[in-house]
């Protein structure tokens, strides 16, 4: 097996996590795509620096984090750029997820599924419609008979509750 094939195995195993990390940092789908490509290319070029006795996920996140900061420096568009502090916070959360039980990133996200299940229906329903059924905000507003602004606030409160629940679970002993 050649080096590219082996490298691809490592990348495949970590792409779910890497994309989620980039998406949390930059939100813009096109930027996530570009930064993912750049991260993989940089990792390939810097293989010399990788200590394979350590997990590769944090190493890839380290590269991706630097690229995200550079992205925000280049881009004057964002009113709320990612800072080193927020990047460190994100990194800690992803490290906590990594330490959860499970073979895959999906399995490690069981805590989030538990948090969603524990949400009151008022918040759970719009989040389910938005993310599981991929409905637009207008559709959800129509289904739930809510004004668009009310829906936005409800989604925002639901996500805030999820964030609090998830942070508590992630800080507990790895399940």
């Amino acid at each position, binding site marked *: 097996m050649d080096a590219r094939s*082996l490298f*691809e195995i490592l990348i495949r195993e970590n792409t779910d996590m890497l994309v989620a990390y980039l998406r949390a940092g930059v939100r813009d789908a096109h930027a996530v795509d570009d930064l993912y490509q750049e991260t*993989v290319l940089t990792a390939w070029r810097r293989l010399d620096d990788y200590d394979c006795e350590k997990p590769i996920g944090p190493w890839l996140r380290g590269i991706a984090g630097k690229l995200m900061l550079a992205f925000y420096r280049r881009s004057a568009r964002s009113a*709320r750029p990612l800072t080193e502090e927020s990047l460190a916070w994100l990194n800690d959360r992803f490290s906590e997820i990594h330490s959860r039980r499970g073979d895959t990133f999906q399995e490690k996200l069981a805590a989030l599924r538990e948090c969603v299940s524990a949400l009151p229906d008022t918040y759970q329903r719009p989040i389910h419609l938005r993310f599981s059924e991929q409905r637009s905000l207008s559709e959800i507003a129509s289904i739930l008979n809510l004004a668009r602004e009310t829906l936005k606030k409800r989604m925002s409160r639901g996500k805030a509750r999820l964030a609090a629940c998830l942070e508590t679970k992630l800080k507990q002993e790895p399940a």
Partner: protein
Amino acid sequence: MSVSDEQSDDDELRQSFVESLLISVSDVQDHSVRIRRAMNALPLSVAATESPTGRSSRGLRWAVTTLSVCVALALGLMLPAGGSSPALVAVERSLKVAAEKMTRRYQLQVDARTLLGTARTIDNDLYVQGHDRFALRHPGLLPGRDTWLGRRGDEFWVVPAAGPVLQGDRTVLSRWLSERGELDTPYLHVSTILSRMHSGGFQLQLLQDESVQLPDGSTVLCQHIQAQQTSPIKGELPVTIKLWASRATGMAIRLTARWDLAPGQPGRKSVVLTYLSDEPSLSAEWFTPQAHQPSRLRK
């Protein structure tokens, strides 16, 4: 920046974090195009690196040898205690062999307890190629009513005996499996069992070499490694996993995973994988659902 602005930034980051994870758990992600594009954009070899360290001369040779070890380590997630034990070395060697793009056929035998408390043994045919391709034939109750399920890279699929073909990400397969108690196990691939064996929570022990008799009557001298679960969180983990790996090649010849079921509890009790043959004549298409739809069935 005011305190309220900082608070707002924190809230926004938290929401962005949760939103990203919600997208991930919604299982709408297909990364195969993204990965292919990224891999195609790489320079031809790592030797082409513009590393300022000036160590590029080691380039490709270094990358191949080091990455082989890295892949084995990364697939296992965590090193068990006593990281360089002979048992661990044997498991890592098998993992490396399992990652080769060779097509191999295994018998996958699942012993299960039904809802009525009766024992059921199901023999499935498993074809594997590398760590991310497999095709499994699950026999139906009537001849010609088999179900095929498999994986090719990031795409998972099920060709049921009747009804539409299911294709998508990992959840397509896991949902289908979870509806079938006797097959409800993620341990459907050689690499998956080896990775689990190699992960934290299992104590590895190298036992006496044993000769394993294959279904065709031939015997293979094997290293015998036992992994005993030590994790306090039992969950869905098997209590023991055993590997018989060819002493000559490192290839997994037999793998068994056993679970402790409570009295009367239905579900799978054990999974036994036994090597049958190499299948060099099978094309890559064998790992797609198209190859297993009745009208197009061919080897």
